[in-house]
């Protein structure tokens, strides 16, 4: 009897240790939805998966760099990162005085983000998975047609320097996930899957049904704009690019 109790206690103890070392993840129940942009407006089915509650922080990435020196600023291959990689850091392993350990890591390339996730036995989310989680607001899984949900996203585009805020400073959504909008853009594994050339008139040709010609802006238009900007930023990226407003988080099957 005693041993069982002891075992149980140790198990609990171990559990809590593991929970503390691992950044928290939550389960996302899969489903079927139509992404705003995608290939031919088809339904997409998402399986169940786990996602990080917060974007990866400066502190977490710092630890990763210490463990994996090949990702230090001075060592990283130019094939995998551009010149701005971690350029705000004081040195290879020291943050700058104005950088908060709990702010999201930015100025990292897709390669660096992908490697980070793999080192944790995780992976980067696909665009469809990311959008699936991101379309929820505080209390519903799909808030894309709500005016205030879209206005929040659009207003973020006008706020300067949101990347220096700390994680958790925006709302917790339906899935108990924070900061999907309002902090930083986030890398996805297949960010170039939807081709947006940046030449809007051509982009619109491609997706005629994206912009309805109605005279008034209804929620759908706002929704299109809020989302279009996300796809436009993805379309403008290359895997080695690093950006001050672009971070990431990981997922797991």
């Amino acid at each position, binding site marked *: 009897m005693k041993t069982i109790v002891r075992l149980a206690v140790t198990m609990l103890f171990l559990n809590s240790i593991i929970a503390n070392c691992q950044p928290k993840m939550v389960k996302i129940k899969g489903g079927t939805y139509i992404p705003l942009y995608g290939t031919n407006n088809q339904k997409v089915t998402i399986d169940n998966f786990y996602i990080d509650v917060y974007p990866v922080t400066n502190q977490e990435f710092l630890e990763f760099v210490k463990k994996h020196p090949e990702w230090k600023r001075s060592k990283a291959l130019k094939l995998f990162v551009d010149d701005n990689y971690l350029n705000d850091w004081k040195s290879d392993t020291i943050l700058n005085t104005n950088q908060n350990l709990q702010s999201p890591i930015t100025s990292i390339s897709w390669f660096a983000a992908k490697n980070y996730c793999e080192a944790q036995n995780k992976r980067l989310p696909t665009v469809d998975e990311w959008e699936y989680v991101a379309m929820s607001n505080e209390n519903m899984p799909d808030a894309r047609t709500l005016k205030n949900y879209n206005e929040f996203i659009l207003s973020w585009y*006008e706020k*300067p320097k949101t990347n220096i805020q700390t994680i958790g400073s925006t709302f917790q959504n339906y899935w108990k996930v924070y900061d999907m909008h309002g902090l930083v853009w986030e890398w996805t594994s297949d960010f170039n899957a939807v081709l947006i050339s*940046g030449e*809007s008139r*051509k982009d*619109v040709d491609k997706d005629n049904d994206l912009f309805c010609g109605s005279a*008034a802006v209804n929620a759908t238009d706002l929704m299109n704009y809020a989302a279009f900007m996300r796809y436009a930023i993805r379309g403008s990226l290359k895997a080695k690019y690093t950006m*001050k*407003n672009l971070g990431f988080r990981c997922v797991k099957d």
Partner: protein
Amino acid sequence: MNILKTLGIIITSLLLISCNKNEKNEIAIVDPAEIYIKGTIDAELTSPPFVPAPVGNRVAKKLLVNMEIIEKEGTMSDGVTYVYWTFGGSVPGSFIRTRIGDVVEFTLSNHPDNKLPHNIDLHAVTGPGGGAESSFVAPGQQKTFSFKTLNPGLYVYHCATAPVGMHIANGMYGLILVEPEGGLPPVDKEYYIMQGDFYTKGANGERGLQAFDMNKAIKEDADYVVFNGKVGALTGDNAITANVGETVRLFVGNGGPNLTSSFHVIGEIFDNVHIEGGSTISKNIQTTSIPAGGAAIVDFKVDVPGTFILVDHAIFRAFNKGALGMLKVSGKENKTLYSGVKQEGIYHPEGSTIQTMPDENGKKTAEVKVVEKSLTQKMKDGKQVYMNTCFACHQSEGQGIEGAFPPLAKSDYLNADVKRSIGIVLNGKTGEITVNGKKYNSVMTKQTLTEVEVADVMTYIYNSWGNNKTNVTVDLVKQVKNKN
């Protein structure tokens, strides 16, 4: 013999023909695509209202243009701020000056702090998207592309990243000039002016940081129509200047996104207008139409001194939405050309306050408790109301205009009775009054201001220019309002 003669005739005629041909070749226009370039220079870029030095008769060259996109907060009007997206940090963006046949090597950088990808579509470019596809650039990156200028004229450039309307409405436009062979005829003064319409969540004059309003933009219901990105960019100390006898050339563009400009200079006639920025020159024009995404080059000689007002002659835009600029001309008067009484301050912005003719029946309003603001805050807010609403007639220091608008500075009429003065602001006033010993007989319209705004502006007036320092409370304004 005959044969010889005919041969001779044939030969001479052939010679004649070939001579003619040669002459024709000399007159023939060189294909701009074939213009040979010699050397490389950095392009001089200027912020409005200034333009780079004329091209003159330099040969075609490779021209390096480096432009940076910056998203930043700026001032739209007194107390109103807005997040502008800019080419080179100004609205409109930097002025680019080239000549026909130049090869422009254009590098577009997107500042790392920016959130959005951008690009540039130059109407001077012959090529798909005007360069938009080649220049799509993520924050922290730069893109380079080059083009040859094939057509002389004044062209608009703008951002063409979706939503295009939003990027343009936030200020992403500017002008690029392609001068003809030998340059434009020299003038004394050149300036750069560009009109744009802005759409904000709050109404015109509503204070604070205003967000872009997509709904209003689609309905084409502009809150601000302005020259050079903000109200007052070309008035007061920012006015453009010239001296009597000089020729002035204005490079005028219209970024839109929606409205066509009816560009006019009050008190001047354009001697020459390059219609729509092209090669057709129209003479003696009063008002020229500049479409959204278009431009015009106008020039005129200034013959008399004074302040000349630049407007969009869709006139409510000028006096109530901000499309008003000033050209101040100094020098000797010439009575034979213009004999009028010179009076400063006839044309001033009137702000967005709705004016109505005075009437006798005030409306009763429900009681709402208002928290009184501090005197400093009231002075600050009151000044903004004053500059928006009262300044056009009563002038910047409350001096008024003799014979037309009574003074508010050291005014016996004003200081004698606070309630009466509040009543005039609320209900308007017609008929003769005597102020500081001078008679005035005109109309003051009823001002549509909130009670708080009336209290602020009256407090500001009473605590400025040697008046009796009354602090007008919101309650007092309410009392006067409800007495009627």
